[in-house]
């Protein structure tokens, strides 16, 4: 089998790569890493590109080199050599309004510490909307980087997680949070 000519450079030169992605192995399973010229668009546990095609652009291409800085920082985080991420974020897959403010509040929870659904709802301006805060975190397109795993129930219960509770436990344990 002859190898086909590589098209990535031609696509880059034409400025036509709206979304570049790769699949990155991690201690919490394979992560879909997708970036746009604006920044990191999503980290996803389910490897499904169709929501991106539908709401951002179908010009989606497998270009691991475009995701290098994200992959490096993720590797460092999972090796306990990094506590916060220094990345541009593209929030176009996130909800607007209250949901977006919940993510912003969540992004401020320091490494190795936890908050509650009520806590982030309060920070987002609606103390009683803790259920809506949970829903907003369940739709977080940027888990790990926007650390929704650090948000727990007020009674100490683990709460839910986009990628399943086991992943939440793994991430908390990695950060040294003991439940």
């Amino acid at each position, binding site marked *: 089998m002859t190898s086909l000519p590589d098209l990535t450079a031609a696509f880059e030169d034409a400025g*036509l790569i709206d979304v570049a992605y790769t699949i990155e192995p991690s201690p919490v399973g394979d992560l879909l890493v997708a970036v746009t010229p604006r920044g990191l668009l999503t980290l996803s546990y389910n490897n499904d590109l169709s929501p991106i095609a539908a709401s*951002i652009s179908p010009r989606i291409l497998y270009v691991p080199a475009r995701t290098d800085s994200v992959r490096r920082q993720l590797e460092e985080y999972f090796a306990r050599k990094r506590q916060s991420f220094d990345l541009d974020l593209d929030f176009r897959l996130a909800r607007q309004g209250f949901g977006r403010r919940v993510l912003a509040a969540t992004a401020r929870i320091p490494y190795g510490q936890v908050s509650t659904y009520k806590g982030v709802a309060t920070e987002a301006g609606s103390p009683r909307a803790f259920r809506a805060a949970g829903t907003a975190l369940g739709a977080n397109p940027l888990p790990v980087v926007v650390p929704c795993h650090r948000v727990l129930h007020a009674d100490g219960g683990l709460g839910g997680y986009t990628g399943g509770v086991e992943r939440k436990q793994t991430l908390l344990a990695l950060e040294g949070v003991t439940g």
Partner: protein
Amino acid sequence: MPGKRVPEGVELPPFQTLLDTHARDVHRFLVASVGHVDADDCYQETWVSALRAYPRLRSAQNLRSWLFTIANHKALDHHRARARRPMPVAEIPEQPDVPGGDSDFEFAVAELPPKQRTAVALRYILDAGYPEIATMMNISEAAARRNVHEGLKRLRHDLTP
């Protein structure tokens, strides 16, 4: 929802899926259409044009036909451009033919007149049916059959030692 750039109701697959599914066949088609030396350029032009136009597609049906229509246009452009240039005395192949490969057949196909060349390449290299060939070449099904038939007759003549 953010960025409504995609027409309502059209769910286009990620472009990478098209590449993974059709890249090899597009290349084979172009090798048959324009020869090994120029196939890579046409291949690149085909995929850049496809990627550029992709978000504006009104339907996710027949993406394969759409791609081969673009590839065929690039091949015809290439032949037109070459016809305007003085012909080289001989084209020197960059690499020797792979023994036992399809190269003889593909080289012979590349020498056919444009419509026969396209029809034969689609039929025998990509296994396309006549309705599909007709769609891709924007001709009638009868014309597609006739072009394949005429092309094969000439090939049989050219390839007979």
